[in-house]
């Protein structure tokens, strides 16, 4: 069943492209410490707003162009003609813990620390944007999954039960959703962030905020699932299952809920970007991830300096590109999944 679904998803061009892109992004986030040449908090105040370094193939090795700071006031750098540093592969560098567990110190590529490599330039304190982008991906990408998993699970079970049982459980659940929908989310976040910031580190607080947000956010999903179940409940195939003497739980899990999946899967994949953008917005406002940890929203927030626009430091906006790519990939995946999950859209053959 799951293998069937995967095959059917990957046979669609949109599904294949978005799945590959997301797989690429998620593995980049997972192996961030290994893929990045340094650590996200490593500063180099001599090299602020460094442009992306160019790579050159020389003497059978990949080399990095060396630069010279010409004017510190406008942060303009000039390549030093004929001066290159060769890249070293799998060289030991700053120690880190892979997956937060395995201690290691090898980096996929690096250069001697006196000549930093900035694939995507450096920021206001000379930190590598590429490294921060990779580390930030971890937070930005998992936030959406956690939030969506929680809302979908709560929405499906509570909405499904409310619609199926009817009567007082239904009224109770619906009044609860109405109450939750009336809570103003942004103010709650501001209040929670203020109340919790002193007690937890920034990423733990943020996780807590996501959990609280999804504990509020399931209301919308639950109401739609309830409506779907209410309309499905009167369909003849449900009546047929009743007449056959099927147990109520089996009817709920075999006949009712699977028929809400095509909605739920699309809604879930389409709301992942919502959480990613929500994280970006919060971090942008300074309520989400705090320094020195990195996230895409935080990086974008820090790129709001007028200097960056005036001097065209475009590489500081790459987190925006990453967000756009992720959001598009999730939307495409949602579409392809909807088609793959619904037998009516099954592709011909097999």
């Amino acid at each position, binding site marked *: 069943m799951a293998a069937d679904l995967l095959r059917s998803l990957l046979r669609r061009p949109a599904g294949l492209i978005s799945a590959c892109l997301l797989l690429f992004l998620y593995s980049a986030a997972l192996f961030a410490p290994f893929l990045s040449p340094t650590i996200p908090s490593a500063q180099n105040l001599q090299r602020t707003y460094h442009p992306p370094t160019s790579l050159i193939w020389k003497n059978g090795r990949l080399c990095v162009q060396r630069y010279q700071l010409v004017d510190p006031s406008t942060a303009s750098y000039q390549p030093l003609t004929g001066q290159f540093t060769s890249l070293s592969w799998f060289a030991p560098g700053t120690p880190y813990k892979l997956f937060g567990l395995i201690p290691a110190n090898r980096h996929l590529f690096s250069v001697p620390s006196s000549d930093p490599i900035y694939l995507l330039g450096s920021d206001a304190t000379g930190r590598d944007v590429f490294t921060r982008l990779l580390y930030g991906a971890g937070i930005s990408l998992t936030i959406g999954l956690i939030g969506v998993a929680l809302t979908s699970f709560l929405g499906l079970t509570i909405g499904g039960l409310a619609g199926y049982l009817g009567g007082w459980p239904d009224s109770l659940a619906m009044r609860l959703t109405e109450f939750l929908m009336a809570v103003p989310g942004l103010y709650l976040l501001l209040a929670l962030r203020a109340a919790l910031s002193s007690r937890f580190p920034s990423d733990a607080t943020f996780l807590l905020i996501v959990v609280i947000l999804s504990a509020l956010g399931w209301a919308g999903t639950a109401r739609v699932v309830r409506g779907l179940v209410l309309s499905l409940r009167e*369909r*003849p*195939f449900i*009546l*047929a*299952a*009743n*007449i*056959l*003497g*099927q147990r109520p739980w089996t009817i709920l899990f*075999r*006949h009712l809920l*699977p*028929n809400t*999946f095509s909605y739920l899967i699309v809604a879930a994949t389409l709301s992942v970007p919502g959480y990613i953008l929500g994280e970006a917005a919060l971090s942008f406002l300074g309520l989400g991830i705090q320094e020195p940890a990195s996230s895409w929203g935080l990086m974008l927030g820090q790129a709001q300096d007028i200097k960056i626009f005036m001097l065209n430091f475009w590489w500081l906006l790459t987190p925006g590109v990453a967000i756009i790519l992720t959001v598009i990939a999730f939307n495409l995946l949602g579409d392809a999944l909807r088609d793959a999950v619904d*037998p*009516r859209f*099954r592709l011909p053959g097999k």
Partner: protein
Amino acid sequence: MSTPLLQVFNLSVHYPLRSGLLQRPSGVVKALDDVSLKIEKGSTLGLVGESGSGKTTLGRVIVRLVDPTHGSVSYQGEPITSLRGSELRPYRKKIQMVFQDPYNSLNPRLRIGTILAEPLEIHFPKMSVPDRSERVAELLKLVGLDPSFARRFPHEFSGGQRQRIGIARALAVEPEFIICDEPVSALDVSVQAQIVNLLMDLQEKLDLTYLFIAHDLAVVEHVSDQIAVLEHGKLVEEGPSELITTQPSHPYTQRLLASIPSLA
């Protein structure tokens, strides 16, 4: 004289109407009003009446989807309207239903094989998996479909084929009594004849008893031994089908008969 297979005694189903801010009861809708019927084993009772006359409600009371307000239904002399849960199970196996709408009567997410295996899982829990798929193939053949259809999904079939699958599902539990709730009204005329003939063949082969609900007197006349006419929840006329169709005594039946379109 032996007891009829199914008897309906003074059956009423009333729905309260509520209105106003406080939802005070302001009247009742009488979906069924004091209806009594009996059906002999191996026979077909045709139930006719226009939309809203309570035909479907009667069928749903018999399969226990709707609880009656007054009256009772008994099967082989045993009252079944007050049974709950496990007491009801044996009757779930004996009484089955075929639905009007072939497009909504099959779960779109399940393959035909799974749909037909479900009743077997419930009522023949000891059946092994290969036996079950053999029985599914047998059922498909019984309703005139290819056994290979078991691997397909409902949306791949026409209305007539789906209706056959619906009949196969009802037959899976080896029932004695089948309620056909307007089984042909959603189908093309040519397909209607095929389904009606299939139902009649099956009746002969499997010794089935039918409650055949329809609004089309022409079809009912063809399949029924007895005909009962419902109007606004009340039974207005009942009798052998030739008598009802040739000498209707109630004006409502006469109007229904006159409304049958003819080529002449």
